[in-house]
């Protein structure tokens, strides 16, 4: 089991002490061209989670390769780069350039950002194009909002994905109590936090039965028990997202909680599936 951050929830350059507590640092999604991202307001706390509408703000692949990646590599934490785009050619072009960089251990394909228009091609087409562009491990990050996540998991596995990242945020909206208007500048954003956990569990549970690929489980992990639940339904690794906003030192705490005594430490996948 490796402990990662969820893409877009940690900047290793502004919080290196947090990144160093992880087994892998996953970058914010990099797109071919620079993106300023969405206008404020970009975040909203809700009763059981939070919304974000960042919109894939990033410096673009050129500046990322030139400026950001060398600085990240100095930290000494294994690096996965999250790759985004608006068609399969954009994804595969970025993968080809990252393929040349020894600092990069693996690539995560962001196939499911709720804050940008979806790519025209299917997840499997994008994975196939990227597979042809790189020999690095490819992790396909899927949305739990798809009607049949296991079908998509099978399709990306057949297209050459080496693993799955489950799950991304789901779309949500919050209204300002005083004005009745949407809090976020874009109205709709990605919903994350504790409310996402049952949705993540369902997606990991279904995909672990559908494909024989390792899975990074994420979505609402706040405690060691939450991580244990995802492992019980089939996750291989665990990623931390929103909890890093609440508690940047959560990696050490959750690792200790996972190592500690818990009745669920002995629960196997089969046992969990009968619960």
């Amino acid at each position, binding site marked *: 089991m490796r402990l990662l951050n969820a893409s877009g929830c940690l900047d290793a350059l502004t919080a290196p002490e947090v990144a160093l507590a992880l087994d892998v640092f996953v970058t914010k999604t990099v797109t071919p061209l620079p993106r300023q991202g969405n206008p404020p307001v*970009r975040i909203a706390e809700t009763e059981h989670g939070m919304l974000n509408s960042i919109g894939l703000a990033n410096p673009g692949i050129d500046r990322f390769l030139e400026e950001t990646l060398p600085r990240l590599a100095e930290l000494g934490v294994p690096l996965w780069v999250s790759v985004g785009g608006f068609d399969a050619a954009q994804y595969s072009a970025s993968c080809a350039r990252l393929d040349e960089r020894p600092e990069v251990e693996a690539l995560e394909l962001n196939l499911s950002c709720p804050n940008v228009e979806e790519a025209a091609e299917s997840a499997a087409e994008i994975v196939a194009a990227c597979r042809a562009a790189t020999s690095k491990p490819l992790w396909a990050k899927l949305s739990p909002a798809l009607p049949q996540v296991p079908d998509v998991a099978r399709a990306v596995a057949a297209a050459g994905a080496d693993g799955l990242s489950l799950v991304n945020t789901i779309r949500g909206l919050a209204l300002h109590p005083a004005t009745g208007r949407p809090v976020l500048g874009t109205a709709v954003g990605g919903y994350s936090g504790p409310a996402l956990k049952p949705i993540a569990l369902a997606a990991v549970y279904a995909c672990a039965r559908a494909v024989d690929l390792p899975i990074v489980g994420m979505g609402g992990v706040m405690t060691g028990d939450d991580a244990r639940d995802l492992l019980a339904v089939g996750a291989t690794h665990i990623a931390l997202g929103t909890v890093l906003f609440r508690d940047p030192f959560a990696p050490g705490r959750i690792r200790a909680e996972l190592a500690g005594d818990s009745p669920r430490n002995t629960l196997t996948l089969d046992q969990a599936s009968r619960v």
Partner: protein
Amino acid sequence: MRRREARNVVAREPVGPYTLLRLDRGSIEPGAPGQFFMLEAPGRLLPRPMSLCLAPPGELAFLIDAIGPGTRALCALEPGDRIHVFGPLGNGFRLDVERPLLVGGGIGVAPFPYLSEVLGGPPAVLGFRTAHHAEAAALVPNAEVVIEPTLVTELVDPSCDVLACGPEPMLEAVRALAPGAQLAWEAPMACGHGGCYGCVVEIDGVLQRLCIAGPVLNAHEHKELAA
């Protein structure tokens, strides 16, 4: 260096409509005036960013306006309660000023008691909505107070080194008067450590994270997005 620790509430004191929350300091450093801390808000998912108001020996004190569920939870804390505190974070006020003048509005006076102490009690002009709100001025030495409809900008001597904190219209007006001013801004913020990209403001034409680039900016650096 920033740290995160669970700290005890020592006292909770009303200051006009605001609440002064005093915590024991532990190993947490007070940092520079204008820097901020993420305070765990009981029952809420996300912590709340608060600039340090006072740094008496062994304590950290925050002046809080209960305007939403998080700040209400903070203002309801009782002595003996424990919350996590993470900080100090961000960039505070530059203190290399010859003729400092503190300009504050409303809850924006929060960082001034500590700033005033560090600068040796410079003059301050503070504006409030009501006389009740203006009770917070008692925390700031050498303060001249105005109540709406009088605006604080009527008292600003632009030849001074202005250090300002307050609502955005006030900061915009101060910037127009004193282009060399240092302005402390605020923005919704999930993490305070650069991870969430939620707190961006337009700085030099580019959206930048206020938690990293600020919260104190030079007046010429920051251009608010059109609403």
